[in-house]
């Protein structure tokens, strides 16, 4: 029988079926093997190592980043536009002061709500907003973040119980306590020359301090003025007034403090506020300027204002009180320890 050599050119154009089958089987297995071999060079990834890295990164975002927007603790989360503008939850005062946290940001961070209607409240939604704005990443990490001031015994916690194997990091921080305090010493009626006084605050002077840890921030933090040295029976007879000096100079515009928050409260003896005039002044009576009050009346870092008080006795001296770094002070920042666990 005539043998066909299938690769020698002839004019029949046909391969034996046996050859085709053999060759096909060979090619299929060749392609299969090539695909298998190319997998030799792929490295393996394991999620277990990742947890510590995620915990470290989360701690850096919390401790060293002021967050986005920088004053996210002032946002009103009931407004959807404000809630959307929250991009990153960082607790630091500013990007130039790592490790120094702001108390209001800490309070806002640990104010969470896990119910379904949480986007209508002024709290952060647990766990979604934390995952989007702090943990980042596609993998659904679970987390537990705890912060405790060293002089307190109970920690602030966000997150659930953690398994034995988890990513972990611990950080030490100091938290700037908000609110500058000034003590206002009034005089005896023997030496007092008038029954009105002014407490003048020049914001450009207050905001000129470069170090953010010690800077007074009356626009965004509360301010407390405590009246001391009360020797006679004295009353504040009308509501305090705020007088704003126009930037070009000239006479100030005075307005009475509003009734609704945020406003200036008068707290006799340091207790609950009152609006019933006349109010008796005792040692420790506070003029409590609430957080956000100055923002509410439209002031900025260049404003100059006076707070005017009127009493029924002549207990004030001729010159006004000045609220500045010489007479007012901030409480010392408080050390705290933070732990981040991710799994």
């Amino acid at each position: 029988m005539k043998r066909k050599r299938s690769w020698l050119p002839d004019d029949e154009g046909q391969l034996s079926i046996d050859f085709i089958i053999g060759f096909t089987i060979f090619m299929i297995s060749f392609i299969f093997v090539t695909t298998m071999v190319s997998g030799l060079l792929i490295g393996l990834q394991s999620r277990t190592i990742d947890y510590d890295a995620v915990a470290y990164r989360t701690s850096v975002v919390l401790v060293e980043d002021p967050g986005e927007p920088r004053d996210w603790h002032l946002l009103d989360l009931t407004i959807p536009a404000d809630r959307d503008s929250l991009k990153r939850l960082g607790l630091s005062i500013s990007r130039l002061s790592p490790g120094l946290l702001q108390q209001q940001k800490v309070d806002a961070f640990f104010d969470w709500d896990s119910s379904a209607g949480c986007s209508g409240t002024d709290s952060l939604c647990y766990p979604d907003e934390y995952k989007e704005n702090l943990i980042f990443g596609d993998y659904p990490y679970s987390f537990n973040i705890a912060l405790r001031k060293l002089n307190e015994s109970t920690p602030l916690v966000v997150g659930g119980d953690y398994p034995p194997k988890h990513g972990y990091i611990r950080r030490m921080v100091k938290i700037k306590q908000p609110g500058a305090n000034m003590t206002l010493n009034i005089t005896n009626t023997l030496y007092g020359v008038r029954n009105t006084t002014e407490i003048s605050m020049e914001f450009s002077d207050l905001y000129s301090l470069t170090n953010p840890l010690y800077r007074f921030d009356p626009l965004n933090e509360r301010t407390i003025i405590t009246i001391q040295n009360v020797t006679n029976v004295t009353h504040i007879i009308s509501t305090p007034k705020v007088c704003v000096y126009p930037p070009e100079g000239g006479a100030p515009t005075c307005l009475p403090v509003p009734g609704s928050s945020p406003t200036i409260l008068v707290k006799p003896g340091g207790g609950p506020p009152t609006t019933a005039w006349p109010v008796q002044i005792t040692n420790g009576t506070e003029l409590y300027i609430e957080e956000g009050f100055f923002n509410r009346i439209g002031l900025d870092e260049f404003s100059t204002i006076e707070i005017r008080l009127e009493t029924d006795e002549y207990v004030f001296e001729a010159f006004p009180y000045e609220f500045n770094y010489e007479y007012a002070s901030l409480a010392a920042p408080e050390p705290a320890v933070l732990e981040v666990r991710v799994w």
Partner: protein
Amino acid sequence: MVDDSGQLYTIEGISAGLLMIVTAYLVVSSTTVLTPQDVHITDVQLEQLGNDALAMMDTRDSYEDERSPLQDYVLYDDSINKSNFEQQFLLYCNSTPFGAMDDLRFNATIHFYKRSTEEQSSYTYYEPPGYDYYRENAVKVNRWIYLEEKPWNGHPNMNSGEQMVIMEVLLWRG
């Protein structure tokens, strides 16, 4: 077309394919893929914590303060202040939010630069009692300190007057 004269092509193809698959399988299954164990993560945790503790001790309590607590401890380094330094540093390093205290130990050295001889030297600031060789997993953290004058118990070779020194703390888990 189809006869019984020995269809070798098919058999050849099958056997060639089989040979390649078996080789590839043997090779692939015998390759060990190493997942590198991340032994350095404990170093990262200790180093960050130690640096944080030193940085917080180096933060003044108020703007009017002349020096931070750390500067006070180094400048006025009698035994009381050294003990205060030890207590505060250990408190910062070992506190946890849930209350349990960790067990970290340290020793501290001050490095200074003698300007007249252009030599860099050091002296031990603090050594734990019953001190023995620190374990492998010790990390080194350091902090710049400005001194207005030579410390009370500083090294005799130190410059007098104002100078910069580095405090180096070796931190390990006990």
